[in-house]
């Protein structure tokens, strides 16, 4: 009867890995509450002796965080909009038609997923420069990041579309709807959850987009929060609780959204897989 022990072992391993991954998050919050001297105390304290929240408003104004967060939101919204509008159509076609061209399309979409942003950024920079897009750096970042987010979205939403039976569409056609009408009135409502979940994931990941923004946007008033944060960090940085407070302000909304929606996100991601 050794079998019941195996799941326990796996649970312990999973918890240990989660702890390793989540510890920085905990440390971020804790450090942001500490005073300057306590941060450097040895041995370190795992819970601040005195919680000091005054760093939050001061960081907010000192680092003009509203500008950074606004830019982040703008970029994330732009990326999500482009990805959802084009990615949904693309995913539908890839889900419904089966021929050589569709296979080639699917393969190239998956190839895009493989290319890392750090490799793509230089050629993109050169191309955007040629097109004069660097004068609109946020637009340029939105385009680049949308291209990066697209494959993930397309692959997941395609799986969602595959779970919508073809016969429903055919029934709608026979009932008197057009191909496009059947897509909007039958297929889209049924795939809505999956699309919504993928859109949220796309939004959250592009909210933290860094590589393209860092390389393409020079003007600090147009930079997103991720780049603004890196402006803090340097070889001699000591302002740890301000940095941690900044990070906390940046990350907390995303975390909150994720925690609120996590049940739907998990079910949305697995519903395609189970069918």
């Amino acid at each position, binding site marked *: 009867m050794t079998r019941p022990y195996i799941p326990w072992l796996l649970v312990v391993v999973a918890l240990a890995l989660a702890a390793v991954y989540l510890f920085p998050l905990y440390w971020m919050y804790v450090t942001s509450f500490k005073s300057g001297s306590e941060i450097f105390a040895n041995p370190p304290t795992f819970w601040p002796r005195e919680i000091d929240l005054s760093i939050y408003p001061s960081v907010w104004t000192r680092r003009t965080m509203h500008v950074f967060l606004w830019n982040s939101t703008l970029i994330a919204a732009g990326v999500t909009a482009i990805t959802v509008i084009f990615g949904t159509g693309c995913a539908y076609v890839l889900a419904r038609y089966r021929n050589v061209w569709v296979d080639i399309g699917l393969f190239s979409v998956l190839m895009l997923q493989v290319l890392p942003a750090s490799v793509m950024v230089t050629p993109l920079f050169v191309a955007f420069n040629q097109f004069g897009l660097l004068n609109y750096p946020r637009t340029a970042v939105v385009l680049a990041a949308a291209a990066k987010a697209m494959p993930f979205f397309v692959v997941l939403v395609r799986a969602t579309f595959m779970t919508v039976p073809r016969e429903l569409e055919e*029934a*709608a056609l026979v009932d008197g709807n057009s*191909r496009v009408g059947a897509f909007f009135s039958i297929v889209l409502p049924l795939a809505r959850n999956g699309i919504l979940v993928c859109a949220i994931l796309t939004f959250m990941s592009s909210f933290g987009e860094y590589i393209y923004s860092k390389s393409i946007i020079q003007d600090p008033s147009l930079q997103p929060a991720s780049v603004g944060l890196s402006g803090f960090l340097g070889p001699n940085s000591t302002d740890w609780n301000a940095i941690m407070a900044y990070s906390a302000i940046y990350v907390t909304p995303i975390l909150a959204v994720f925690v609120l929606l996590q049940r739907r996100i998990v079910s949305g991601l697995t519903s395609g897989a189970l069918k």
Partner: protein
Amino acid sequence: MTAQIELKNIDKHYGAFHALKNVSLSIAKGSFVALVGPSGCGKSTLLRSIAGLETITSGDLHIAGKEMTGVPPRHRDIAMVFQSYALYPHMTVEENLTYSLRLHGVGKAEAKAKAAEVAATTGLSALLSRYPRQLSGGQRQRVAMGRAIIRNPKAFLFDEPLSNLDAALRVQMRKEIRALHDRLGATSVYVTHDQIEAMTMADWVVVMRDGIIEQQGRPLDLYDQPVNRFVAGFIGSPAMNFVDGVISEDGRGVVVGAGDRIPLARQAEPNRKVVAGVRPENLRVAEGAASFHFEVGNVESTGSATYLTSKDGALQLVQTERLGFSVGDRVGLDIDPALVHLFDPQSGARI
């Protein structure tokens, strides 16, 4: 009678696969036509071509006198009941029923009244605000039917609508669909792989195999006069027995073994190799001298009938009397010579 649906020389290719081979079929107005055949015979493809869900590679299709070959499904004014029912899961029963009406610009109040009327005839009145997932299989089936009849189409197309129901419900729905057809005076095309459904429901049965129509006709004509061995074996349950043999010297019987001879009602070409077809229900246990014999290999009793299968599995016999045979018994058999069918061993064609 005028043809409601007219198919002329229809061909359909899926890449290299030739799914429909020069199919021509005329479906009379008000008739109930069943397309039967084994899976992959092209019956569903034919139905879907009529609906416009498949494009025809070549040939002509007319519905109610109008050329419909390349017309999209929505302009064909036909209704279809799918095997999976294809109810819209995000709509209530009422919304499912009125979907086509709303698409055709029928007003809300009128659509609602129409839905209530259809629901009453199909027994769905209490279920109008439910969602499909809250319905049983039979209820879903009724919604699918209701959705088809609500707009009074030129033809109803059924794609194996009963195959997801249990046996008892299937028998009941069979009658209901037929009754509905008669009441509406509709034209129906019904695809099934179940020959009993085809025989019991249809006025006209079309037997298909490998993309061609093997035979079409009234159900009993198909049963009595199958044009080839395939149709003979497909129509009728349990299936017709086929026995290899040679026509006797006098041409009045088929010699099927030592001293065994199946009598014929007419003169046949002597010494010709043939396949004799005899239906299990036409075989009788001989009272006097038997014309041929049979060793019992298996006995199945359902109460109303007894099914005997020969030791080699080649011959089956259905008797309504309880005969009390057991495995290993040698039984003498007889048959009315008029009920013996002869087929060519190579081509399978009726002789």
